[in-house]
């Protein structure tokens, strides 16, 4: 596999994405809208409720974890658009006729789906944490963020969730012929991540660093399995002859 080819493909994808306003709004707008909503929750619900630091932890960690849920949703749409969209625009056949291998094409498209979404989520989460620290500093007497839990969530679990979402979108893209279909299958990623969120909010699952590391390990194993599945399901002959 030639990384330079994948980076060329990724650069082109980013250029195309940067010229589609609806996608920019989706990548940037979604996390930032969520961030604003969360800050309102912090200001209107968490800070006035007061309590000891562990009372704050449940609410703040749950909100931070939601950025992980976002990382598992947003990239699948970009990846689905990137692959199925190319088939719809009939640009996939000339691309497949170049010396780029299936693996290089998929990696390039995955990089282009991963990088802008994860950067956007990190940016939104960082602003959330800084403003939350400002809002909670006086009642907590210390800065809640950054901490190990949020570090594991944002720098381990969120990227792994994003990769999982992209891989599922790639698999879905080779089975369906429209962006919406691929997107819907890719969005299934929402279920396990949302399940953990609800379990955390209900106190069944503690958002501790250790628990999140174990969850990350499980996602890593699934990512590796999905990687092999996604490369084996991306068959250029089927794409060219069966996709309508």
């Amino acid at each position, binding site marked *: 596999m030639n990384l330079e080819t994948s980076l*060329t493909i990724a650069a*082109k994808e980013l250029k*195309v994405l940067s010229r589609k306003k609806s996608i920019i709004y989706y990548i940037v707008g979604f996390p930032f809208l969520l961030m604003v909503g969360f800050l309102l929750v912090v200001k209107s619900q968490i800070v006035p409720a007061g309590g000891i630091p562990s009372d704050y932890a449940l609410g703040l960690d749950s909100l931070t974890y939601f950025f992980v849920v976002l990382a598992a949703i947003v990239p699948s749409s970009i990846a689905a658009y990137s692959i199925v969209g190319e088939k719809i625009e*009939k640009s996939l056949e000339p691309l*497949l006729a*170049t*010396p780029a291998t299936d693996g290089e094409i998929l990696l390039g498209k995955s990089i282009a789906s991963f990088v802008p979404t994860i950067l956007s989520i990190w940016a939104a989460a960082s602003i959330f944490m800084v403003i939350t620290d400002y809002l909670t500093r006086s009642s907590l007497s210390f800065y809640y963020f950054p901490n190990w839990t949020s570090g594991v969530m944002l720098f381990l679990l969120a990227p792994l969730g994003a990769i999982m979402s992209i891989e599922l979108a790639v698999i879905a893209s080779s089975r369906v012929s429209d962006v919406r279909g691929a997107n819907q299958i890719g969005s299934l990623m929402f279920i396990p991540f949302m399940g953990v969120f609800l379990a955390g909010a209900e106190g069944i699952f503690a958002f501790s660093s250790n628990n999140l590391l174990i969850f990350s390990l499980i996602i890593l194993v699934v990512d590796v399995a999905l990687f092999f599945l996604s490369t084996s399901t991306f068959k250029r*002959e089927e794409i060219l002859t069966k996709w309508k």
Partner: protein
Amino acid sequence: MIETENLTKKFGDLTAVDNVTLKVNPGEIFGFLGPNGAGKTTTVRMLCCLISKTGGQARIADYEVGNKSDSIKIRKLIGFVSDNVGLYESLTAYENLDYYGKLYKCPEPRRKENIERFLKLLGLWEKKDTAAGAFSKGMKQKLAIARALVHDPEILFMDEPTANLDPESAKTVREFILSLKKEKKTIFLNTHNLDEAQRVCDRIGILNKKLMAIGTPQELEYSVGARKTVIQLVEVNDAILNALNRMSPGKVTRDDSKLTIELANPNKENPAIIRAIVEAGGNVQSVSISASTLEDAYLKLVREKQ
């Protein structure tokens, strides 16, 4: 340069390409003529290593089609113009070509030089910074051709490059294809446009799942039957017909005062025939030679198959 032997492609029970054997020489423009669904696109896709073959052999230069390690080498060697332009509409003409040049690992100075050269040749240089989505159909097709050439391939596969183009754009594309011949490029051209095939191609293969015939346009025209001499007389009488019967030049058909004679070589036989008619008292008004056309050959071969 391009060689196939019993090349076959089946999709389940359906045979799309059936035992096609052909050879395309270096620097040659080879036309693949056939009706819709004849297997032209499938053949090109197999040769471009886009889909697998079911049977037979195919070689591009020294590489084996179907051999996984040779596939990448073949794709580096060829350029491909698909039947759909497939451009990135939000990218400019220059960006579209630059992207493909990079994918083919064409070094930057050569890439820039080729982009400028082909955009200028195809009359698109002034529009290099315009998004491809804003181009007309003809301009998009020209850009797709430039894209296939940006890495300067030795072999170019073109699948219906003038389909759906207006006559002027189609003419520009045809002239461009002919200019590539001067650069010694080997071109494999899929078309169902008989006129285009006749004007552009050195040799033509007529495909209808099987390869029905192969040869130069002239060879194919001659293959369907004798050429005809048409003689317009003031009047046709028995003396003239008897004189022609004595000569037994070929099948003679009379239509009022017009005689049509099937001949193997009209240029050689016509003087003696005219002399015999005049000696028999005939007044000749005009003489013309009517040859079978590529269209006759094509229709005959395609109908035979059906």
